[in-house]
């Protein structure tokens, strides 16, 4: 399994790689949500500086007609850089991709929708080589998906997972309602002792889980079925923490060490979110069956 790091700032990229990152997922300015937004020049610089690191670019913003020309232009510019792949949410990316013979691959990254092997296979047959599994499915579902698809898969291991994205400026609106100016900072909201992080920017508002997910105790299972990439999202994690964390995760990926898993739990806790918790969706009994 390769260790993928999602940087939150450019300055720490060298440290991530030095500590064990095999790949990075970067954002592209104006086209990324919850990824470090960089210019094409910045990306080019990073790709050239770290030639042995796989670089993926996330274009996961909802795209509007007014952005299509710029999107196509950026996708063409990315083709001149040796990136490994582009993560996409909006189907406009796939349609543009089909018009050209790009050198890079595509990663299906519809955050909460990568939940079954049939849709993985559908996109694989459309030329999408990779998929980024949803964080809301169980380890058993992830393993079953891998057993039924040739798609190479990413799975989210550590970080504050994204829960929702709105076009609305929810913090600006809230502060307007209490006659204050929003200061532009991320905010913590809470309910029943559970915290959530609210982030607003020009594209709208994201809400992230306030707890750090830790899926590292499932790495051996993921490796067993051949899942290729495990992801650490660094947002909200300190540089000092990451300096300890990244080598430990790398070690688990190589050695399967349970002791290292315990060391990781000491650093970030053991919130396994949906890895071992299945969601429900019917709360009423079916009175009538077909």
């Amino acid at each position: 399994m390769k260790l993928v790091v999602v940087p939150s700032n450019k300055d720490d990229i060298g440290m991530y790689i030095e500590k064990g990152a095999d790949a990075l997922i970067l954002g592209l300015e104006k086209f990324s949500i919850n990824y470090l937004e960089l210019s094409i020049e910045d990306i080019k610089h990073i790709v050239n500086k770290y030639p042995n690191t796989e670089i993926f670019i996330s274009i996961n913003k909802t795209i509007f007609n007014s952005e299509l020309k710029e999107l196509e232009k950026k996708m063409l510019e990315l083709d001149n850089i040796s990136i490994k792949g582009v993560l996409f949410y909006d189907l406009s990316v796939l349609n543009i991709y089909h018009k050209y013979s790009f050198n890079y691959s595509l990663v299906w990254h519809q955050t909460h929708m990568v939940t079954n092997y049939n849709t993985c296979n559908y996109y694989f047959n459309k030329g999408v080589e990779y998929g980024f599994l949803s964080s809301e499915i169980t380890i058993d579902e992830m393993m079953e998906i891998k057993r039924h698809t040739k798609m190479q898969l990413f799975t989210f291991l550590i970080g504050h997972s994204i829960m929702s994205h709105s076009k609305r400026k929810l913090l600006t609106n809230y502060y307007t309602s209490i006659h204050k100016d929003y200061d532009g900072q991320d905010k913590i909201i809470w309910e029943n002792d559970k915290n959530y992080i609210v982030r607003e920017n020009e594209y709208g508002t994201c809400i992230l889980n306030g707890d750090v997910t830790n899926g590292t105790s499932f790495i051996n299972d993921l490796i067993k079925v051949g899942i290729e990439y495990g992801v650490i999202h660094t947002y909200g994690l300190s540089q000092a923490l990451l300096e300890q964390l990244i080598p430990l995760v790398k070690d688990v990926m190589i050695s399967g060490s349970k002791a290292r898993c315990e060391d990781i739990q000491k650093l970030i806790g053991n919130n396994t979110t949906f890895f071992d918790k299945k969601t429900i969706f019917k709360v009423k009994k079916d009175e009538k069956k077909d």
Partner: protein
Amino acid sequence: MKKKIELLSPAGDLERLKITLLYGADAVYIGGRDYSLRANATNFSLAEIKEACTFAHSLDKKVYLTLNIVFHNEDIEGVYKYIEDVVGCGIDAFIVSDPFIIQYIKTNFPQVEVHLSTQGSTTNAEAIKYFKNEGVDRVVLARELSLREIQNIIDNVDMDIEVFIHGAMCTFYSGRCALSNYLTNRDSNRGGCSQVCRFAFNIDEEKEKFTMATKDLNASRYIPILIDMGVSSLKVEGRMRSLYYLATVIGCYRKIIDAYYDKRLTEEEFSYQEKVLSKVANRETSCHYLDHEADYNDQYYTGRQEVSNQDFLGLVTGYDKKNKIVTLLERNYFQVGDEVELFTPNGDIYSFTINKMYDNDMNEIEVARHPEEVIKLEVDGNILEYSMLRKKVV
């Protein structure tokens, strides 16, 4: 000549389906017992889907079935047989979000239309072109688009476009919200949404609760523009709404649409229909993104703000033309002396003061106080089954 725009209504069960079609919907969308994003609505059995299709087709109208969950592995087994069964019931279209389902339907049942669900949050022409190539017949646009953006999309694609015009709004992009999963363990993308966006949260250093709930959508003012733009279908939200709500909302939009096509839509008519719509609203409404970037004014800030509506007084179950006696089932309290009106599926309205009323045995009574009680009133008119009695709209 361009086809008349479709008025598309939700229906949570067979009774509501019949009522909404009688009140003027051109087509109805329903959910089956599985694979639909309203997992906790009553929903339709296969026998009911068949009856729904037979009823709708007898009126030359259509039925669409939502199959728009985001599938998990465990949902796959069984769905193919289910699709085949539903096609056998006579369904006109499936509303789908997962592309492997689109491909399966178009490969195996090309005669049945596929509509891309708003769960896909489709906001641009390039994405629509992708789905056009996949055989999709219609795209339900995301609710985050302005009129200008909708027009721009229509101008750049060869695709039937469906637009939401009325009902509850999601705070977040459809499909891009898993709050319900994290806070209540209920999977929003498989129909379990617990509406966490209507919860109130504490927030850093502030006394006032942080909320993110939106007002409901009401695009009645923009119907003429949407018609002129070339939109194919106008969609009302609400498969869990009551039959009174559906009859009223669909009845209002039917009148607005027909009046516009007949070149008799006046400001007076608009204002009246808006007033009627406001009577069934349990939240404030807004047009959201249609004519502005949704902002502070389009949300609530003090937790749930919903009012219970008690204007619906009774549902007509029969009419004795000879004696001019209407029979109805009581829904909310009313009494002799009340100013009321009967509105009918064909759009007629009979306003009157209740001078006399009777129980089921024609004993004169003063007050109707028990829901489901049989009440009889003297009314002279063409009172159809499924007409409804409400407080007079003033």
